[in-house]
């Protein structure tokens, strides 16, 4: 009997599966490196009775420790996959007429490779680049305050010097 039933499993399973938290943590740690220490990345986790969410947050220490959430990953408490990945640019284009209360639809990943693909898409998006550039710029201004003033004020400061 068993000989007549084929192997219905996929050819092989990927066995070194990384969790959504691990994927976001690696990206968070890399942010300091790619921004030469100007920005930091952290992963914050909250959980309820049913679900867990991890947030990849960019922190700009020099700019009032400003915090900007880039990605939110949500999954069941005991099942890291599928994981819903929420980020600017990942929301579904359809259903834009939803009420302001309705949540837009975001894609889900069934394993770490799909998750990495979505995170990569989010981190390489124009919006993310703009956010990172803005926070670096604000941090640089904060380090050299007179440059952030209007020309008039900067001139006055220079004159005093």
């Amino acid at each position, binding site marked *: 009997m068993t000989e007549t039933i084929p192997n219905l499993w996929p050819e092989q399973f990927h066995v070194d599966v990384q969790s959504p938290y691990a994927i976001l943590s690696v990206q968070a740690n890399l942010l300091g490196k790619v921004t030469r220490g100007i920005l930091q990345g952290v992963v914050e986790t909250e959980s309820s009775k049913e679900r867990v969410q991890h947030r990849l947050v960019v922190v700009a220490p020099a700019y009032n420790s400003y915090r900007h959430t880039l990605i*939110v990953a949500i999954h069941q408490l005991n099942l890291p996959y599928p994981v819903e990945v929420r*980020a600017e640019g990942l929301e579904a284009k359809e259903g834009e007429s939803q009420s302001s209360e309705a949540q837009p639809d975001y894609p889900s990943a069934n394993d770490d490779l799909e998750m990495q693909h979505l995170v990569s898409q989010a981190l390489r998006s124009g919006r993310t680049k703009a956010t990172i550039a803005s926070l670096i710029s604000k941090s640089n201004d904060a380090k050299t305050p007179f440059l952030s003033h209007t020309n008039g004020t900067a001139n006055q400061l220079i004159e005093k010097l």
Partner: protein
Amino acid sequence: MNRDLRALIASAVVERDVDILLLAECGVTDDEMSIALSTATGKVYSALSEDSDKVRIFTRLNVASWTKRQSDPVRARMAIWSVEAGRPPGILLAVAHLVDRRNASEGEQAMLAVELGKEIDRAEMSIGHERTLLVGDLNMNPFEDGVTGSLGLHAVMTMRIAERRARTVQGTQRKFFYNPMWGLLGDRTVGAPGTFYHRKPGVIDVFWHMVDQVLLRPDLMASVHDLEILDHIDEVNLLTAQAGIPSRTVASDHLPLAFRLEL
């Protein structure tokens, strides 16, 4: 509300001499609202919010005295600002419009409350003071887990409890908020019994909900005065004539809150 209520809102701002106006589901653009407020009051009101922010902020205070501390464009359910208002070091103002029960489970609502509580904690640690207030449509009542829970907003009903500042829960210090909205629940107080009326079929129904709230840290709780749920603006009744519940045709299904901070 998502309706054009410029005239009515401008009347309220004139009537109460409002410095800071917070609107959720504003039906007009920030520019349109700013112009309406400035025209009605003769003072310049600036709009501070980013495009994605759910709660729109308008103020006649100096814009330079406002610093945003965080942003979350994915959901934009909350924003935290430090404001150089009153005596130094000023205040920390958190605004929120959390997701409602139709679009989220009770668990997800509580999770958002935990996130909001943590973000406020971090902002306080970063800025170095706790003169903090949280204002918004939390879409939860003062007695629900996300608002009362020590992992969430940890908002308690009396100043006496809140003045202890924090309590230790499972080895961790959890700061209190004082929630004065408890004092406005029901019909034995001045004003409407809640800010939102909703009937649902089922065994349990509280009918009136106090989802719009003001929470204050102990350092700021004695500063709040004249907190009220508005059921009139000028001569306009915001409630239906028969049932006495918020009238969507006149204004909104939520009633506005007004309060004064003595800083």
